[in-house]
């Protein structure tokens, strides 16, 4: 019965074809450094899932942000776990994506024909850092507040347009409710949308071009 259902679906959806192209690809003999991309993807999925769960209780307003997180940590069942995974997953993701970039660089995997994979990867790394930066403000505690004060002040030192950049980042001259709301929006909508799109391109190119092998001495 199950086999019949599968055949029926497979004939229409091409599940076997997807399996063979996506998962059963031919790969060169590689090492553990080549797992960092998958690890980053896994962490991203974890961040999306735990992040969605956190929005059930989190409120991005100066009046409620801190208290709603205290509520998640102390009163919601397993709230500490969900937020803990999101917190540590964020740190791990930055580390994994960064080492993934280093691996690609040192193994010269960015060269022809994989330049676009590299370019999308660069934006993905920047977007990951952007997620870290915007997410850091959301707890609205002293550390978040002052980290964002400093973090938005830094681009403000740019000549001529510095003040303009600060105002765009903060949504005004001060760190305020507007800043919190726009950081939240960027954190849960803008950056995830960009990351999803780029991961799509990134993965498509990996499947299309295959992964590079470990460079040999004569390369």
């Amino acid at each position, binding site marked *: 019965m199950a086999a019949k259902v599968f055949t029926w679906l497979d004939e229409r959806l091409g599940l076997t074809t997807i399996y063979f192209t996506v998962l059963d690809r031919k790969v060169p003999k590689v090492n553990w450094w080549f797992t960092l991309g998958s690890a980053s993807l896994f962490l991203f999925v974890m961040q999306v899932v735990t992040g969605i*769960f956190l929005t059930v209780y989190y409120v991005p307003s100066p009046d*409620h942000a801190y*208290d709603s997180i205290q*509520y998640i940590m102390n*009163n*919601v*069942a*397993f709230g500490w*776990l*969900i937020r803990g995974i999101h917190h540590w997953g964020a740190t791990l993701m930055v580390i994994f994506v960064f080492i993934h970039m280093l691996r690609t660089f040192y193994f010269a995997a960015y060269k022809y024909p994989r330049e676009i994979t590299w370019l999308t990867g660069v934006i993905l790394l920047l977007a990951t850092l952007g997620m870290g930066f915007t997410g850091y403000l959301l707890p609205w505690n002293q550390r978040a507040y002052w980290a964002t004060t400093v973090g938005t002040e830094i681009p403000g030192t740019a000549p001529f347009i510095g003040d303009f950049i600060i105002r765009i980042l903060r949504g005004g001259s001060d760190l305020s409710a507007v800043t919190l709301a726009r950081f939240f929006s960027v954190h849960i909508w803008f950056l995830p949308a960009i990351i999803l799109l780029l991961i799509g391109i990134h993965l498509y190119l990996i499947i299309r071009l295959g992964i590079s092998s470990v460079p040999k001495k004569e390369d």
Partner: protein
Amino acid sequence: MSEPNKLDRRDFVKVVVVFVGTTITACVGIPAIGYLLSPALAVQKKEAWIPLGPLENYPIGTPTLVSFTRTTINGWEKTVNSYGVYVVRSDETNYKVLSNMCTHLSCRVTWNEDRDIYICPCHDGHFAIDGQVVYGPPPAPLKEFETKVEEGVLYIHFMEGA
């Protein structure tokens, strides 16, 4: 060739996969469900004797609306709910206290002096002075509070979520 009673490699792998899969699903699923449900399951029993002032202050024959508020903590915020009750004195000794909440869909009823009934504005439910349904969709009479009088002061036993 495997002996009939021995677990062969294929079945062993199946058992392990099912076991590990179930464990992982439970480890992820139970916290996820608990996280979503926990505020709903936290039952707050709200119970108190609310003083409504000296009984003798209430007029005989006319239901009088008394309002009071109750503060509860929901999540990270205080929620202030206001409640209304009608104190109905039929004579010097007999009295009852009725909730103003319509038993149909929880709109608030008001006493209509001219027609001698409580009228619910939402679906035109009518209640008699003692809370009995006389017209409309309400399925039950207005809720009556347990009362007591201590040193002349009227108290009602307020219960919610109980």
